[in-house]
Every structure is written in C-alpha cells, then in structure tokens.
C-alpha cells in the first residue's frame, strides 16, 4: 500500500480485513537506478508491515521488477539480482507481479527469468496481465510461455486482472485467476460477480486495486455487499473473499494468519 495513506489501512481494518498482500509494482514513474528498487524492497518488507500492524492487519508482499520497467533487460537483471537478499524475509510470499505490459520480446524474456527464480525458491507466482487492448494477446503469450516450464506447479500460479475475455483461458489451463476490482478499468464489482456466476468459484479470487491511479482499497468489501444484494450465500461470499485467497496464499510457507 505504498501508494495509499494510512487512512486506507484504517478503513480496511474497519471492514474486517485480516491481511493483505502487496505486489511489487510500478511507482508511477520509472526508477532511475536499481538502488531505487533496493529502497522499495526495504519499504515493502520493513516499513509497510509495521504500518499495517498498527491496524491489526498482516502485511505480505511479492518481489520482482514489474513488467512496465522490464523492457530494458540489463536494468531488469540488475534489479532481479537484489531479490535473493530479500526473498527470505518473513512477509515475502513469492515472485510478483511479473508479466507483460506491452507484449515485448524483452518483457517476455524477463518474465521467464522471474518464473525461474520462483521455481528455484519453490515459491508461488503472481502474474500481471496487460491493460486494455493488450490484455488478450498478453494473456495468451503468458500462457504459452508458462507451458514451457515443465516443472511449474500450476496451482501455485495466479494470473491476475482477468476479465470476461481472458478468464476461461486462465482457468482452463489450470491456473488460479484473479479479478482486480477497479472503478473504471479491469473489473467492476458487478462484472466480477457476473464472472463468478458464469465460471464458478473454484480457483478464483478478487482483489482491490490500491495503486496510484483511480482505485479503491474498499472494492472487495463493496463487492461482498453487492454479492449479498444479489442474493449470493454468505458461504460463497466468504469463499471468494477469504477462503480462496487463504488457500492459494497458504502455499507460501510464510503466509500465516
């Protein structure tokens, strides 16, 4: 939640949030050096857990260089070389959010090198799929790439930001699917519920986007309310907002509530 104020932690606590996981992502601008990422990884592993703990929320994170800054492979590898120093910290769940942004050759190469790091450490993977017009193509490229990793346990991989045109590709290939709730782009709460109604509730979760742009950390509780209004059972609401995330994240040895 590096892009959010402490007020947002309080709101989440009031809504019953037990824990959150924060992917390593773009800062809203490109960092000028790998040292910028060193400081960022310290923020994710040292400062944010303390800020969340003041509201009784457990803070977990993922590490990587995000795809938006991964088009320069030399720079990306400098950042990736920092990961071993942080990977065993107590709130680090795995590698993410890796993936593609503009579906470039270099982005794909760096994505695959990240997947190999996750395999080397036997940790879960959180994958970002591209925005808007690039999402469908990027999702297919990611799935094709993952298929070449014969030792990859697909149940330890979640492919995030699915929408109506990509969710079946992800679930049918045996991966977890994440629906990121946004007021404008990606999934609205109403559409996320539609996806649950059509594709079921196995291996799927929803998450609130908490980034620099228009986003709402309370999106998941609001979606839970919308599910209630649409007469979904308390069991189903709990499953997609709590049980499923807990099931997936518990595959990381460091995830404990």
């Amino acid at each position, binding site marked *: 939640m590096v892009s959010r104020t402490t007020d947002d932690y309080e709101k989440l606590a009031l809504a019953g949030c037990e824990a959150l996981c924060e992917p390593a992502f773009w800062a809203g601008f490109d960092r000028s050096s790998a040292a910028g990422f060193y400081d960022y990884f310290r923020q994710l592993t040292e400062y944010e857990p303390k800020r969340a703990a003041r509201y009784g929320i457990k803070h977990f994170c993922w590490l990587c260089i995000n795809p*938006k800054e991964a*088009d320069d492979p030399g720079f990306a590898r400098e950042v990736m070389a920092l990961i071993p120093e942080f990977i065993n910290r107590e709130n680090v769940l795995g590698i993410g959010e890796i993936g593609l*942004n*503009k*579906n*470039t*050759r*270099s*982005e*794909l190469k760096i994505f695959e090198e990240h997947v190999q790091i996750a395999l080397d450490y036997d940790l879960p993977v959180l994958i970002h799929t*591209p*925005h*808007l*017009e*690039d*999402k*469908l*193509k990027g999702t*297919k*490229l990611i799935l094709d790439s993952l298929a070449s990793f014969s030792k990859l346990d697909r149940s330890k991989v979640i492919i995030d930001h699915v*929408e*109506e*045109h990509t969710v079946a590709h992800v679930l049918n290939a045996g991966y977890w699917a994440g629906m990121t709730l946004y007021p404008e782009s990606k999934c609205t709460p*109403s*559409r996320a519920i*539609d996806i649950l*109604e059509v594709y079921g509730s196995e291996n799927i979760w929803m998450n609130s986007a908490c980034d620099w742009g228009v986003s709402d950390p309370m999106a998941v509780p609001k979606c839970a309310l919308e599910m209630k*209004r*649409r*007469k*979904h059972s308390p069991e189903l609401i709990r499953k997609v907002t709590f049980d499923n995330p807990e099931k997936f994240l518990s595959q990381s040895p460091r995830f404990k509530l």
Partner: protein
Amino acid sequence: MLSKKELLDMQFIDARARLIDLAAFLDRLERHEGADDVRLRYLKDALPILQENRADRAKAVLEKFSDHSVELSETAPFQGASGAPIS
C-alpha cells in the same frame, strides 16, 4: 440468484444512465471539431454487439477492443494503453 425482475429493479436505472451517458458522449464528439479517431470507430463498431441475443456481450465487446496480433513487439512504443489497438 436474482430473477430478471429483481435485477431490473436493482440495476435498470444505473444501466439507463450509463446508456444515456454514452449517447451524450457521442453527441459531444459530434459537436466538436477535429479529425476522426480510430477509437471512435472501435466504439461504434462495438455498439451492434449490444443488440445481439447472446449471453456473452461483455466478452465480445472486450474482444472487439483487443489487439489480435500474435507477434511480440520489439520495443514498447509507450508504457500505457489507449483502450483500442491504434497502431
């Protein structure tokens, strides 16, 4: 699951408002000067999908706004996305 009537009771006014917003947006573009933009063409091309009798209109609209090429790009022309393929 809600019945059709219950869904309409809950969401019809919101859907109506969104449709009028879209109509007003197209009116606004009509009134303002400037060159045609491929994004407007994508928007208009997607509208007939709403009239089709099918249960996957959202998927079809998203596919309409998607890049269907398969080749990797050599470099990123820019970092963001425009909402429709504009190359």
